[in-house]
């Protein structure tokens, strides 16, 4: 429960109205002691309740006041007699007050522990809220990144200078498809893997451009997870007539292994 939630729970009002359980009373007193906002709220509730009580005031008969003063004077006489008795037995009251001090100390220890417990709970709650906020921040950051990437990819695809070349599967892997987005102005090359089998760990796919009948290395690429970007930027090329992908040793080869050609497409 956070402070706002606690204030809105009605527990403070119930405390002021005297209808809370002993646990709730303890909690309210501890919360007011720990959190200034709670204390402020509690005082404000008490102030309006006191106004209401004042609106209910009734002048008591004058006789009550004199009765009270008679009673406290009688009380004083009685206690001064008791004091005189106590003076004649000095050991007993000391023991009593020692006991009283112990009880008082015990009570304050209990109170401190209880307040400590309330504070601890609140702190744990705060910690878990902070953790939650941080994880939300992280996922928001991730979504932002993906959104930015997606926009960049959309810009590549929708660029009027961009040529789309669909590379279809060869006899090695008839089901495979990959797409090249090639900007002939900037010469930038992007590949989108539509469908390629996952390569063995020691192998990587390599893209080639055929320029003047000769294969030019356009770099290796991995199969990305769906949450990553769809397009991967490859090496730039000019004057290519065909694009093809072969499966090579990890890191790539200097010449393509032609019997491991998975997809290919002409301009």
């Amino acid at each position, binding site marked *: 429960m956070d402070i706002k939630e606690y204030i*809105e*729970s*009605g*527990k*403070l*009002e*119930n405390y*002021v*109205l*005297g*209808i*809370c*359980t002993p646990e709730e009373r303890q909690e309210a*007193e501890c919360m007011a002691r720990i959190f200034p906002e709670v204390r402020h709220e509690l*005082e*404000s*509730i*008490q*102030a*309006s*309740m*006191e*106004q*209401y*009580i*004042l*609106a*209910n*005031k*009734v*002048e*008591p*008969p004058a*006789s*009550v*006041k004199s*009765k*009270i*003063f008679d*009673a*406290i004077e009688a*009380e004083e006489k009685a206690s001064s007699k008791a004091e005189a008795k106590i003076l004649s037995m000095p050991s007993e009251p000391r023991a009593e007050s020692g006991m009283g001090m112990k009880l008082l100390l015990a009570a304050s220890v209990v109170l401190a522990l209880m307040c400590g417990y309330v504070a601890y709970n609140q702190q744990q709650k705060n910690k878990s809220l902070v953790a939650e906020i941080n994880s939300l921040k992280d996922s928001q950051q991730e979504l932002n990144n993906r959104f930015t990437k997606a926009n960049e990819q959309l810009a590549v695809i929708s660029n009027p200078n961009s040529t789309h070349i669909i590379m279809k599967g060869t006899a090695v892997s008839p089901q495979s498809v990959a797409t090249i987005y090639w900007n002939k102005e900037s010469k930038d090359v992007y590949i989108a893997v539509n469908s390629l089998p996952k390569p063995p760990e020691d192998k990587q796919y390599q893209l080639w451009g055929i320029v003047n009948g000769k294969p030019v290395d356009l770099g290796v690429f991995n199969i990305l997870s769906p949450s990553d970007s769809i397009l991967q930027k490859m090496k730039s090329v000019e004057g290519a007539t065909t694009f093809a992908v072969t499966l090579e040793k990890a890191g790539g080869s200097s010449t393509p292994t032609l019997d491991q050609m998975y997809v290919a497409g002409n301009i």
Partner: protein
Amino acid sequence: MSPLKISESELILLLKQKNKSAFSELYDNYSPALYGVILRILNKDEEAAQDALQDSFVKIWKNFETYDPGKGTLFTWLLNVARNTAIDKLRTLGRHPIQSLDQNVNIEGSHYSQNVDRIGLKEIVSKMKPEHRTIIDMAYFDGFTQEEISHKLQLPLGTVKTRARTALIELRKIFN
């Protein structure tokens, strides 16, 4: 309350030293408010209310050293003493609040509104929703527990809690 002749903190200091003229001033200043509360709790039984008022002030005199200004205002402390004394008195008279309510009250507090006879209170009452006033009066003046209020008004316990809050928010608006 009439304004105090001396500051509240001076009054508290003097009372802690058992100063009788400070006590006299405390009585003059706070007894009407406390008596009003006690009378309400004791269902206008004036004799019992005067006894309870007397008991309250004797307790206040005797136990004043236990008052801790750090924990709450003087008025709140005095009210607690008076309220508890009156509720105890009600019990020793064998009139537990539940019984008296069974006999006198139709649900939703019609009886509370009928007994209003002072102008200040009338104004407040006219501005407050009856169900809000009922919950404050049942809790504070009749000393019912949440469960008892829930049972009497046939409301879920959670509603009692939230209605108490709404009622006090309404009260706050009226006085501000």
